[in-house]
């Protein structure tokens, strides 16, 4: 049963969607969404969805309350309803409305707003599920699946053809051969799996602000790729002079000092791919973030070699994001650009500050690979 309100409800959702779209850049920059993420949905504060009126500011207005307490005593948080004072029940709040948006929907909005192309999957779809769909009609079947309308029609047709149909006494009696049954077909639903391998430089030069940028950006990358692929796995590698695999939480909260050997991370990345993600079954997305300082030109050469020989041939896209830091020389992206910049499945992006995240997401996802 559908309620009439559903039309208004979906209209409301459409409007919310428009608001999110219009404010997407702000949401991306501020990273506002991260703290509000649930499993499948995110709750987003939408300001200005209420209808403006001539009204009093509640703070100037005050009101009348009821209860114990001395004059001058503070009322606890939440005691005062924001909005129209004691017009209980019909107050519109001053607070922003929080709405739940599914991550899938958010990804769609992101895609529309940034005009992201859908990812072209590599030909490695594998069948994961089969689904029963009742699409056909059969002349045999169990009674529980009898299609009454079709059966009736068939009987009516037969009776009219046979001249036994009397419009004044329109009784239709289906015979055995009139009966129609729903029949199902097994449908193979191709599903593809994907893995993101995040790598981040956690050496001393990567400060909190840089990591925050990586965190925000990875949220959007996750959201988009999750929207594109049914199953998405994530792996996390942190590195300074050595690399190790960690969980998501550690990934974003580790800070080390010391030197940087990017090759260590790429080596680990290569090994993970070789061990767990055969090219034939997985879409693979390594993302690497650093401030662009590497230990030596020699190490950089190693990195490029490894990229060329082991990583690039096996992955959908390799992405490198260089987060500007006051300490980094920012050399690495230049080296990469020179060496592999022309390769189609390489995406390079420089991220100066939070404002640049928006454009950077497009750098990474805009190729549709």
């Amino acid at each position, binding site marked *: *049963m559908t*309620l*009439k*309100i559903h*039309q*208004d*409800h*979906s*209209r*409301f*959702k*459409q*409007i919310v969607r428009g608001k999110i779209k219009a404010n997407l850049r702000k949401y991306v920059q501020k990273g506002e969404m991260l703290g509000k993420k649930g499993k499948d949905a995110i709750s987003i504060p939408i300001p200005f*969805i209420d*209808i*403006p*009126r*001539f*009204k*009093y*500011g509640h*703070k*100037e*207005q*005050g*009101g*009348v*309350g*009821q*209860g*114990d*307490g*001395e*004059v*001058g*005593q*503070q*009322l*606890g948080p*939440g*005691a*005062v*309803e924001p909005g*129209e*004072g*004691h*017009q*209980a*029940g*019909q107050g519109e709040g001053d607070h922003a*409305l929080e*709405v*739940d948006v599914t991550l899938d929907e958010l990804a769609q909005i992101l895609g529309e707003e940034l005009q992201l192309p859908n990812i072209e999957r590599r030909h490695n779809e594998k069948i994961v599920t089969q689904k029963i769909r009742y699409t056909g009609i059969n002349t045999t079947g169990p009674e529980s699946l009898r299609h009454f309308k079709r059966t009736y029609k068939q009987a009516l047709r037969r009776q009219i053809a046979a001249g036994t149909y009397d419009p004044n006494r329109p009784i239709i009696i289906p015979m055995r051969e009139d009966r129609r049954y729903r029949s199902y077909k097994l449908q193979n639903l191709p599903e593809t799996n994907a893995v993101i391998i995040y790598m981040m430089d956690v050496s001393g030069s990567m400060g909190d602000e840089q990591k925050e940028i990586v965190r925000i950006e990875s949220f959007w990358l996750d959201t988009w790729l999750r929207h594109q692929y049914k199953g998405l796995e994530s792996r996390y590698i942190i590195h300074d002079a050595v690399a190790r695999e960690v969980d998501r939480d550690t990934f974003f909260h580790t800070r080390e000092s010391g030197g940087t050997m990017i090759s260590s991370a790429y080596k680990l990345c290569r090994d993970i791919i070789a061990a767990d993600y055969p090219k034939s079954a997985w879409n693979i997305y390594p993302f690497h973030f650093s401030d662009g300082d590497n230990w030596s030109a020699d190490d950089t050469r190693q990195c490029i070699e490894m990229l060329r020989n082991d990583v690039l041939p096996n992955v959908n896209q390799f992405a490198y994001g260089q987060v500007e830091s006051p300490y980094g020389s920012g050399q690495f992206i230049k080296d990469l650009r020179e060496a592999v910049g022309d390769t189609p499945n390489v995406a390079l992006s420089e991220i100066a500050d939070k404002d640049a995240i928006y454009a950077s997401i497009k750098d990474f996802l805009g190729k549709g690979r």
Partner: protein
Amino acid sequence: MPKSLTPRLAALRDEIHGYAKEFGLDFFDTIFEMVSYDEMNMVAAYGGFPTRYPHWRWGMEYEQLAKGYEYGLSKIYELVINNDPCYAYLMESNPEVDQKLVMAHVYGHCDFFKNNFSFRHTNRRMIDDMANHATRVRRWVDKIGVEKVEDFIDRTLSLENLIDQHAPHIRRNPDPKKAEEEVKANERVEGFKVGREYMRGFINPSEFLDSQRKRVEDEKLRAKKFPERPQRDVLMFLLEHAPLEPWESDILAILRDEAHYFAPQGQTKIMNEGWASYWHSTIMTRRALRDDEIIDYADHHSGTMGTRPGAINPYKLGIELWRDIEDRWNKGRFGKEWDECDDLRARRSWDKKLGAGREKIFEVRKHYNDITFIDTFLTPEFAMEQKLFVYGFNDKRNSWEIMDREFRKVKSKLLQGLTNFGQPIIEVVDGNHENRGELLLAHKHDGQDLKGDYARETLRNLQSLWRRPVNIVTRYDNKGAMLRFDGTSHSEKKVDL
């Protein structure tokens, strides 16, 4: 879709109906319908009606209600429509004791709707009209497009509170078209018909013609200065004078109609909820309650009566005030003798055994609205007993705090919050401001400033209806200010008051 009552519930309804009649309640026929929780949320989102015109904000209400219910934060117990017959909804999943409570409560509301003077002019066929409004708006949507119609509704809703709450009781505006025709008639000042040309000077002396012309000019000028007196019903003014397309006028008229329909409910919230609560409590505890239901009943009743420090619960304040009045008139605690008695002990034991309480409250429910109700019956004793206080925002501590417990301040703050629903009073002063066709509104400042960002957004919406620049005179920080929106930008200038 709504179902009719099960035989069991129908029997309970008949039982409660009997008690309500026995106690002297007088109401329209009341039809109860069973709904599921999401139907309840829908109907509540629609303001109690099964059908409303299409608009996204019902969807927003619905989302909030549905979420509140799913998270177990809130639940709608009763919904009743002021209509003849009254319609009320019962939620399927509720236990029997709740259903009885709701029925008793509903009969209280229906009695109030039928008898209170504020509702005398309300449309008792509003269910039909709401459905008609929905059809009309849908037809415009088909013709004009959903975006345009909805956008217009958004802008009009922004002005929805600018009605004259008392308008249904007063007939003030003569037909504007008729006035226009009169002016036109007067324009013909050629004078009397002249048969012989040489007689013209005698029959129509030029001084006479001149004075006639002058009179017409004056009249035109006066007509240009409109409205003659400040007009509270801004929506009506726009309806009559704004350059609206037919579809826009139609929608504006619909929204104005609906706003007026709901106005009396806003004017009598404390009385009405209090009255319904008084009756559900009386009927339940004196008649309908079974022994095994007492705990559940007490739980739900106290849930409804709960207060929190920074808000007035109309159910609680209302029921207590009704009981206080009943008690005072039972004991004869009113009149000159009572007022002049200073002896505290005598006052405390005052009981003239008048027993006039019931009669008094029935009389009060007829002739008062929230403002006169509070103004007349809120006593210092009552305010103290109910622990009422004035609260305000302390900027230094950045928090709300109790400001005052003095009776007069509590009462005047309470009344202030009830005047015009606690919303600013705004009037149209001039529809041809500066002789440039601009609209000038005035805010009757009563010590509280308008919320600035909202005021500017509202002006923007008003301008889109008036299509010429709009202005409002108000006061900020004790200085006169005129806010203006000319169609592209906002400005503000100081004015002397």
